[in-house]
């Protein structure tokens, strides 16, 4: 698993993809912090910075995950992975963690403006840390979905578009829930909403239920990707 993780990280930063994703997210963090400052109050950090970044992260994640499983199939390098003495779950975990690591770097560097502010004032760290943790959790969940989708196809483009479609759906699923008449269906639909789960973190609260929810999503999709990889041997 470590071998695969290290190789994937290296491949992200051997090509522009890793740098571009990190740079885009950092630039957006910077921009939104700047706009918050222009409004003159750090009260807006949570809603303005992280509220916007939630959407933008959802857009960048498909780019990070799109090549995770597709490239191996296309270049036939899956033959070396699957004939090496490592299990399929380790292969998928290595890839998932590599994608997550890229996102982790971007999100962590996104704290830089808050740290800079810390020299001149006291931003509300509780809220910022809460948002940061929430970002990592929903990001991880979204990445696991992206890795799974990329294992379904050998085309990076299809993987990216598929993941993008799912993330757009997850972004707007609660507005969809609001328009459903049947209370039971509405409850189910809003239960899968990522933004509802995420919003508890934006208030600086650490929600165990939401944490478990996101971690379960990651576990389920890593598991599904491993099964998908395994199933190709039988097709």
């Amino acid at each position, binding site marked *: 698993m470590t071998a695969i993780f290290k190789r994937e990280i290296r491949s992200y930063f051997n090509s522009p993809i890793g740098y571009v994703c990190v740079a885009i997210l950092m630039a957006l963090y910077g921009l939104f912090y700047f706009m918050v400052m222009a409004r003159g109050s750090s009260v807006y950090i949570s809603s303005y910075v992280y509220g916007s970044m939630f959407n933008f992260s959802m857009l960048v994640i498909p780019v990070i995950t799109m090549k995770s499983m597709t490239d191996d199939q296309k270049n036939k390098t899956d033959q070396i992975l699957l004939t090496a003495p490592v*299990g399929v779950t380790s292969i998928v975990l290595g890839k998932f963690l590599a994608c997550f690591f890229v996102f982790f770097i971007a999100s962590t560097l996104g704290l830089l403006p808050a740290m800079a502010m810390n020299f001149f004032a006291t931003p509300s760290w509780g809220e910022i840390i809460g948002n940061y943790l929430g970002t990592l959790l929903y990001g991880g969940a979204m990445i696991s979905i992206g890795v799974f989708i990329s294992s379904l196809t050998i085309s990076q483009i299809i993987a990216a578009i598929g993941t993008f479609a799912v993330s757009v759906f997850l972004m707007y699923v609660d507005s969809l829930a609001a328009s459903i008449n049947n209370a039971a269906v509405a409850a189910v639909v809003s239960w899968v909403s990522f933004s509802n789960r995420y919003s508890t973190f934006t208030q600086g609260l650490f929600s165990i239920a939401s944490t478990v929810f996101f971690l379960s999503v990651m576990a389920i999709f890593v598991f599904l990707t491993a099964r998908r990889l395994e199933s190709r041997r039988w097709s």
Partner: protein
Amino acid sequence: MVEVRNLTKRYGANLAVDHVSFSIEEGSIVGFLGPNGAGKSTTMNIITGYLSATEGSVTVSGKNTLDDPNEVKRMIGYLPEQPPLYLDMTVKEYLNFVYELKKAEQPRKEHIEEICRLVKIDNVYNRLVGNLSKGYKQRVGIAQALIGNPPVLILDEPTVGLDPKQIIEIRTLIKNLGRNHTVILSSHILPEVQAVCERIIVINNGKLVADGATDTLAHDLSQDHRLIMCAEGPEREILHAIEAMEHVMDVYSLGEKEQGAYEFSVESAPDIDIRRDLFALMARNGWPILALRNTDLTLEDLFLQLTSTDASSDTGDGKGED
């Protein structure tokens, strides 16, 4: 060492490998022959654990691929048809990655350097794999299979894309590896198989059609036993004399090949060697034999004979060569 029993692989209605069984002893070099789509690569992919069999079992050194997949994979070095190379890494990074992936236990630096020397890629050690020529990529692929020093090597067309000099080098390398490894290699190049392998397994349409030692397989499978003789003397008289010999089924002249020398085709009854009697007869009559050879099938003939017999009746090619 490698035991394959009743291996079957089905792709939907298509039977790619059909109840193939063979076993390979430790330290032997076995050649896998067969036309495109015969099921060679599929069989190799199943042995290495990349694909799973629909039916049948593979055991390597007593360990089953289904029960101890990781143990079996650790014992096999595999070079697939298309070398599984990451083009964005240097040779050094790639081999180090494979070393970690295979959890090799040899001292890392020495082990990798030794393999690079062996397959002669030490001069491209720091170059990007993607920038290497086909021949070098193939050699990096072979290097990758050797990492961890696995006792079984499975090489799918190892000399594809190499220049003649490299081909000879790689053949010599495989022969040397065969001293302390079990090697299974597939190839389309028959002289290569003949030069390298001790044993040949021929697969056609997913079925095993021949299995035997390289030297005797052709002879054993030859259906007719004819001698071609070139002798000096009167054509007609020689023909009559040979016709009168015991065990001779058929004889005819192939015409004058040199001044006063004729070539004859002599067919004997199966399993009877008439060369000595023929020599005595010719010597008695004072007709010197200038050349005498038998017409056992060459490996090419054999290959064509084995693989074309049912090709016309059965159009369903096995998948597997992609």
